[in-house]
């Protein structure tokens, strides 16, 4: 089938619906947020329309810089963990029988149906001293005394990886299914071990997919605000937690909006850098 280039204005009508949706549900709210971020905060009240830079000025401090740095670091750690775990898993999954694949995918999809709250509370129970997994280790004689594994950085990371893992698998799955099996067969025929074939053939062939997946999980993890609160100490709170604090509890919408705008800009910047670096790597 050949694609006809658009001839008349009417040919663009199918685009109207997505464009309208994007405008209503993305452009307008985001524009409102940018506008609010310049509004004047009324302490002890709400805000009044104005054009001031105060909200951005307050954000530019070592304290918020530290929180932003931690949030980015956490999101990168989650993205890397997810891809490192999900890539071999998905690769092996695509080599399994159809029925087994369906079973795994259904199980993973059911994890997606869990809310962040349930995941958070479940993990905080699993990591607790009174009812957690360390009790099993004690029963097995592997540990002397049950201890609490939460709140800690490890707990936050585990919870967030658990939450993002199904997305990662679902994004990698189509690419891995489409991967030509003759590539690995050729590598094997030429004497590569299965492990070597995986790293020298499968991984490079999927480079773009892997980078795209990393970016997706990174952005997904950056927005997390509940799990760091439920499973971490205050020093593990992400910028999203502080944004929520300002918006919900301090009724300081302008400052919350300014922080959110900043977070979006930094995210877009990092994604752009990754894409540019990817292109350069390809050209070389």
């Amino acid at each position, binding site marked *: 089938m050949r694609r006809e280039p658009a001839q008349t204005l009417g040919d663009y009508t199918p685009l109207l619906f997505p464009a309208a949706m994007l405008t209503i549900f993305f452009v307008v709210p985001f524009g409102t947020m940018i506008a609010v971020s310049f509004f004047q905060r009324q302490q002890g*009240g*709400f805000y009044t329309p104005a054009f001031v830079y105060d909200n951005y000025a*307050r954000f530019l401090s070592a304290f918020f810089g530290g929180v932003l740095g931690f949030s980015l670091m956490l999101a990168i750690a989650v993205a890397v963990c997810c891809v490192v775990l999900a890539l071999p898993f998905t690769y092996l999954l695509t080599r399994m029988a159809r029925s087994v694949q369906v079973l795994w995918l259904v199980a993973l999809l059911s994890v997606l149906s869990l809310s962040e709250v349930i995941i958070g509370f479940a993990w905080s129970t699993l990591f607790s001293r009174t009812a957690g997994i360390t009790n099993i280790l004690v029963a097995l004689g592997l540990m002397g005394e049950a201890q609490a594994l939460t709140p800690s950085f490890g707990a936050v990371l585990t919870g967030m990886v658990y939450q993002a893992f199904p997305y990662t698998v679902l994004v990698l799955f189509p690419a891995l299914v489409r991967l030509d099996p003759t590539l690995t067969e050729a590598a094997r025929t030429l004497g590569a071990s299965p492990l070597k074939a995986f790293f020298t053939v499968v991984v490079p062939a999927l480079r773009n997919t892997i980078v795209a997946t990393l970016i997706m999980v990174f952005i997904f993890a950056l927005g997390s605000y509940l799990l760091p609160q439920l499973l971490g100490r*205050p020093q593990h*709170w992400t910028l999203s937690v502080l944004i929520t*604090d300002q918006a919900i*509890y301090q*009724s300081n919408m302008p400052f919350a909006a300014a922080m959110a705008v900043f977070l979006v800009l930094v995210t877009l910047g990092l994604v752009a850098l990754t894409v540019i670096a990817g292109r350069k790597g390809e050209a070389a």
Partner: protein
Amino acid sequence: MKINSIKRRTLLGAGLAGASMLAMPAVLRAQDRSLKVGVYGGYFKDSFDKNIFPEFTKATGISVESVAEPTGEAWLVQLEQAARAGQAPADLSMMSQVAMLKGQATDLWTPIDMAKIKDASNLLDRFINKYPDGRVAGVGAVSWYITLVTNTNVYKEPPTSWEALWDPANADKLGLLALVSNSFLLEVTAKTFMGGTNALDTEEGILKAFEKLAEVKPNVRLWYRDEAQFEQALKSGEIPMGQYYHDVTGLAAADGHPVRSTFPKEGGIQDSGCWALSRASQKVEEAHVFIDYMCQPAIQATLSRKVGTAPTVKRESTDLTDKEFAAVSSDIEPIIPRYDLYQTKSDWLNQKWTELIVG
């Protein structure tokens, strides 16, 4: 060409249909006597649903739809945003004092006509919240205490003083409220170590209190925003000590959970909730009937017995026995939060506080 014109017409029709659908809620407004009342979710709302609202409907014929509101100022923000759009997610809401003051700043609360509240004379003055110009912004609904709570399995003996929070023996055992404006820990610090909350009059005094409060940090396992999170951990003994609501802890203890609430010798923190009417609400008449009903000494006594809150009317006007009164309140002079600070210095306090616990 023909196909295109049909498409455009369909699109126009769809647009019109969409626009009229958006306008509909404003056209339809139920005329029956009803009232949406916001109360804190969980135990609190359950007790109101069971013990208070049905009786009110029986007495007045006004049906009540209860709305679970989150604690802290989350609900204030929602009411404020909704009022800007002319909507009221609840007509009347139970609001804390800090939220009342913040709402006053934007005229969020419809003034209450005290002439319509028959039992107004019984109300204690400090529970009537007024605008600076004297209009009544809210009328005391209930008052409650935040006290020192412990798990009875872990602590055989109850603690006697707020100093227990600073005790190195309690390392990593405390659950405290995560916000400066709902934990009132600055006031606790001032009352326990600095001779009273007047010490917070100056910025130097506040900074000193922050410094003292920083010593608590190693003892804190959980800074909670969500009550359920701490309540669960307290019951299981996972986090065996902390600050929590006296009423809810009493209800949990009555259900057989190993928890207790203690009034420290420096006093419990007394906070109160007002009934406040959103300016977007159309149910001004019904709201006054409801407030009037809730101010009756008999209803206040029922609240003390069933919900565990302290009355906002004079104690003599109720028929509470000494024992019943002691269960919901204490003769020890309470720590009264410095609400004024959370209005005049809210951003500064919030910034210092966040740096204290996150840094």
